[in-house]
């Protein structure tokens, strides 16, 4: 029986009175892409740091590649690649120098190293920028260089802390294309993100909020965790429509999603007609109301909303 790539049990870490990670238990299989999803301050970065052995937990334990992250930290570090949220490479060193540096640090054999670096550079479209200083790269290119450096030693598990934060959409898509290619090479990927469209691309996700895992499973499973159904209302004045619906439907959760209003309800059939009726009566022009599949965003808002309410 093979051990999971990552397994944590009751992992906790506090900073003063704030529990950054609170009793985190999860397991990630080999070859899986796992997404840790949550808003800023949810504890994603701390989780990353605990799993990559660069921070010790207060309690609980974690094993990465079968090694304990505290007592066998160095063995863990040999088998993982990590890309911190903040750009961690040297801006005054060129793309090539950064790669060579990390190749030396990881003890990548000189034999075959040149080909490996070439492959990683072409893989991340950085070949034309070999001699450019890392500080002069665009945000997206910096992230790809970070990824290339984290892959130089062919790690078993790759930890990426919000790799596409602040990167333009085209580069983001590019970055994910690279991640999918890596999956084909049996690399396990543990990625954190605040973007829900990225979370949808993961095999499994964990929703994190205030240090705790609120939901865990495939994106589909997580969506099913949501109670009730969603009626999407398209109105001329969505902001006003939201306020009116909130007042008229006290049992339902009403939220604004872009220019649409989402109404979460246990009785979707009635709600469709009812929202149109309420809004028409209030003089707000409605162009449609229909039942939709919940997106992760809906789940997210629903889960966090409930939780926030409970805590207040």
């Amino acid at each position, binding site marked *: 029986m093979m051990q999971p790539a990552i397994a944590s049990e009751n992992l906790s870490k506090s900073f003063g009175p704030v529990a950054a990670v609170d009793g985190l238990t999860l397991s990630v299989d080999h070859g899986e892409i796992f997404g840790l999803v949550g808003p800023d301050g949810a504890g994603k970065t701390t989780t990353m*740091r605990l799993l*990559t*052995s*660069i*921070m*010790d937990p207060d309690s609980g334990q974690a094993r990465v590649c079968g090694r304990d992250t505290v007592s066998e*930290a*160095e063995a863990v*570090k*040999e088998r*993982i690649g*990590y*890309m*911190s949220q*903040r*750009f*961690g*490479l*040297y*801006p*005054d*060193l060129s793309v090539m*120098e950064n790669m*060579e*540096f*990390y190749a*030396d*640090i*990881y*003890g990548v054999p000189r034999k075959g190293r040149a080909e490996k670096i070439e492959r990683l550079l072409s893989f991340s479209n950085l070949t034309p920028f070999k001699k450019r200083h890392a500080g002069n790269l665009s945000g997206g290119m910096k992230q790809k260089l*970070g990824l290339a*450096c984290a892959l130089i030693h062919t790690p078993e598990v790759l930890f990426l802390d919000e790799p596409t934060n602040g990167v333009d959409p085209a580069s983001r898509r590019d970055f994910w294309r690279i991640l999918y290619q890596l999956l084909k090479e049996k690399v396990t990927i543990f990625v954190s993100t605040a973007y829900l469209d990225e979370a949808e691309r993961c095999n499994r996700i964990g929703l994190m909020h205030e240090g705790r895992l609120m939901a865990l499973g495939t994106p589909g499973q997580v969506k099913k965790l949501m109670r009730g159904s969603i009626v999407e209302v398209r109105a001329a004045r969505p902001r006003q429509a939201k306020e009116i619906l909130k007042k008229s439907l006290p049992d339902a959760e009403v939220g604004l999603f872009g220019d649409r209003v989402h109404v979460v309800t246990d009785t979707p059939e009635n709600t469709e007609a009812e929202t149109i009726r309420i809004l028409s009566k209030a003089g707000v022009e409605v162009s449609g109301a229909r039942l939709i599949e919940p997106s992760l965003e809906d789940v997210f808002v629903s889960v966090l909303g409930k939780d926030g309410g409970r805590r207040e």
Partner: protein
Amino acid sequence: MKPMRIFAVARKEFLHIFRDPRSLAMAIAIPMLLLVLFGYALTLDVDDVPIAVWDRDATPASRDFISRFSASPYFTIVRHVDGYEKARHCIDSGEALAFLVIPEDFSETASTGQEIPVQFIVDGSDSNTATIAMGYADTVAATWSRRVMMELEQRLAGKSSSLPVDMRPRVWFNPDMESKNYIIPGLIAVIMMVIAALLTSLTVAREWERGTMEQLISTPVKGPELILGKFLPYFVIGMFDVFLAVLMGEYMFHVPLRGSAALLFFMAAIFLAGALSVGMLISIVTKSQLLASQLAMVVTFLPSFLLSGFMYAIANMPRPIQVMTHLVPARYFVALLKGIYLKGIGLEILFVEAGLLAVFGIVVVLLANVKFKKKLV
């Protein structure tokens, strides 16, 4: 310890230094600048003391006496005055540091062989210079008196006598008694201590501040590999600084190097290792560039300057301070440098200082390694 990793870190650090003109300037130009500045400014020699003279006698004898002062390299007569008020003004304005008054009956008394009271007023606001000037004045007066006395005796008794004791002082190691000869070697020690600690004080803290350390500690690189790798380029630069300083001592300040140059560089290497590690330790502990550089400055500059025996003799310090000086590594290096430079002595005499310097280096290196943690807190 994998050599590949150590050299990777060293190479990277070299690139950082060479691509940042400011750090390169700090590493090479500043020590040289300090040496020139202090080498020329920090002279403890007192010569050409400006004096004002009031000759109330104005006879050949009094003029002869005054000419002994003007002929001496230690005094320069800046003004002849007639009255205390004017002399006072000269001293107040700083034009003169001393004031010589020849009494009206100078030549008359001299011919009788009686004691002549000559007044010498010194500006005591700089007591060190005042003391030295007074000593010089005494010597000038005594020499003149002796000659007058002998002439007088010869005229009266027809024979010359000699004084009971004729002291013949001879100065070893620094026969010209030039302060630069002992200041320059000491200065090399002080400057190296300060610059070395300042250089390394930034290196670890910079990685924490820039966020590159988080990436680095996620790799299997070991603490000692990282520290040694960071240490190497600064060590090379530091030794280059020592080499330049020794060249400047030789060709710019003409300080004689009597001992073995090889021993000098060997000792400099040990001292440098300790000084660089002090900076590294500070950088590791503070994790902040600003704090680290300020701390490095405070920890190295004042103790090295005041307590190393470079300027102020340790033997003259109060006992508790003397004990404290043993914790100042520059103390041993200053002693070594002065010994090698001026006395030309070797390890057979200097082994205690050399040993203590090595102990200091080892302790700091170990501490730096213990204090460096590959963890975030």
